[in-house]
């Protein structure tokens, strides 16, 4: 329901304890999906499989922290603007439900269409948060827009100031988890080369492996019985 941005879901779940659990589940799924969607950089840096899983878990955890901060920002900006006291958990449920579109963030890996899907998801998430604030917290549409825009700005400001040590800690944690230096960025892909030496191909002989596969198409029988069959080509 939250995926379809159905307004009733926000009212339904807002005041229940299970609403919070439901919201946390969505945020967790969205976190895993988003981490997978952004995992290309781990591969580019040649992370080993176990380390890959570890780095993914850290990235998911950092998404959860991001969710808490985002909730906190929306809650404080909303309370300041409207003057009305909103319970923190109500905001947490509403913001969590608005994460629903990000459950599909994994689809950003789709070859060639990844950017398009990213754009659609970003737009969808933006609409989702505005609708969530509107229906879930009974804000006017313009208030919802203002609160989410201001919340976003506050988040950006925090990232560049007091959030800096947290971000540094996160990237330190990611580097530790990856087990290899994460030097290659997605923009470096066109310059990546697997072989440094121009005459690397001299070792191709060593790298060759033989496999024996059954024939794809069985040989046509050379018998006479087929000569009268008209083959549709």
């Amino acid at each position, binding site marked *: 329901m939250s995926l379809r941005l159905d307004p009733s879901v926000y009212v339904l779940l807002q005041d229940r304890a299970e609403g919070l659990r439901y919201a946390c589940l969505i945020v967790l799924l969205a976190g895993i999906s988003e981490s997978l969607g952004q995992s290309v950089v781990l591969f580019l840096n040649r992370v080993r499989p176990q380390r890959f899983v570890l780095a993914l878990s850290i990235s998911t955890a950092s998404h959860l922290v991001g969710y808490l901060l985002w909730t906190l920002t929306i809650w404080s900006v909303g309370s300041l603007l409207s003057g009305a006291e909103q319970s923190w958990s109500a905001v947490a449920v509403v913001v969590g439900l608005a994460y629903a579109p990000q459950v599909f963030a994994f689809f950003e890996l789709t070859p060639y269409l990844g950017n398009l899907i990213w754009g659609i998801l970003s737009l969808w998430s933006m609409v989702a948060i505005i609708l969530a604030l509107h229906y879930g917290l009974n804000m006017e549409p313009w208030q919802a827009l203002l609160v989410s825009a201001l919340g976003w700005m506050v988040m950006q400001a925090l990232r560049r100031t007091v959030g800096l040590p947290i971000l540094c800690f996160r990237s330190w944690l990611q580097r530790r988890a990856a087990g290899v230096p994460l030097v290659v960025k997605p923009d470096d*892909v*066109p310059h990546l080369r697997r072989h440094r030496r121009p005459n690397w191909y001299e070792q191709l002989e060593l790298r060759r492996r*033989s496999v024996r*596969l059954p024939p794809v198409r069985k040989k046509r029988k050379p018998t006479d019985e087929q000569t009268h069959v008209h083959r549709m080509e």
Partner: protein
Amino acid sequence: MFTEWSDLLLLPLVALIIFLFWASLTPFETLGWWAGWFGNAIYHDTALNEAQEGANVQKTRPSQPSTAFVLFLSGIGRVSGQTLSYREQGFLDRLRQRLPGAVVIDNIFPYSVNNLALTGQPIFAGLWQWALRRKLEGPALAGYLINTRNLLQVAIAADKRYGPIYNQAMAEVMLDTVMRYDFDPESETPIFLIGYSGAGQIAIGAVTYLREWTKAPIYVISLGGIFSSDPGLLVANHVFHLWGTRDKAQIWRFLMPGRWSWIATSEWNRALRQGRATIIRMDGMGHTGRGGYLDRNPPAEGERSNIDRTVEIISAIIEQADHPEHIPRIG
């Protein structure tokens, strides 16, 4: 809880989600290869080589150095280095007859980073063998699984995030393949990559990397190829794009912004302006099957078959590639 319209939409929506899920998983093969999870090996099918040697398919003889290496990259219907199509086989036979001095190679599977056939893959071999049986014996619909899978690999090759990695892998496979036929990277014997259909992208993508490893001139012949505006277009010595006037698959180019004529700075439009790419019209030819580039049956009584016209154009290109202006544009 569902309203009526959403009930109707549910089925295509689920199909779309399953497809997107599959599509999102495909890059892991390429990425895992780059990360070294699947080892370094390049696979080749021994049964195929023995069969070819048995059939006395031409290999270079030391006394007669080959004039060119022609690497045929098949369309998206393949599952391994073996061709499934009688038309492709007929095309290759004719090309070999027409160009006795050239080495024509087709035992390459251009939709796998390490040339490992789908039917030989560690986990999904069973699935692909089943799909292959369905493709050969029917119902053909299941066979489209193979085409979709290979089409996704083409999308990977065209993607800015994965393309450079995939294309590097393919260039390695290609170099390994031609070197198995005694190609010397230090020599000046030209390499021709014929990319049929989706393999047009694979051929163009790999040129960037092949160029760094060999001194030989590299030409790309796109046979009804579907490709994006790849940097390889400006790296190849020349790109010849054979374009059938009835080739409906060419509509895919509209999905590639760099191929739009008004994006003047795209590699494709620059290559056309600089005379590094030539479009050759193939009158009346479709993409595949009846009326396609490789159709053996003449379109009308007394006319030449499409396959003969295609072979003639391609051999003319291979013989006179360094003078593209001499190549007849008869189509």
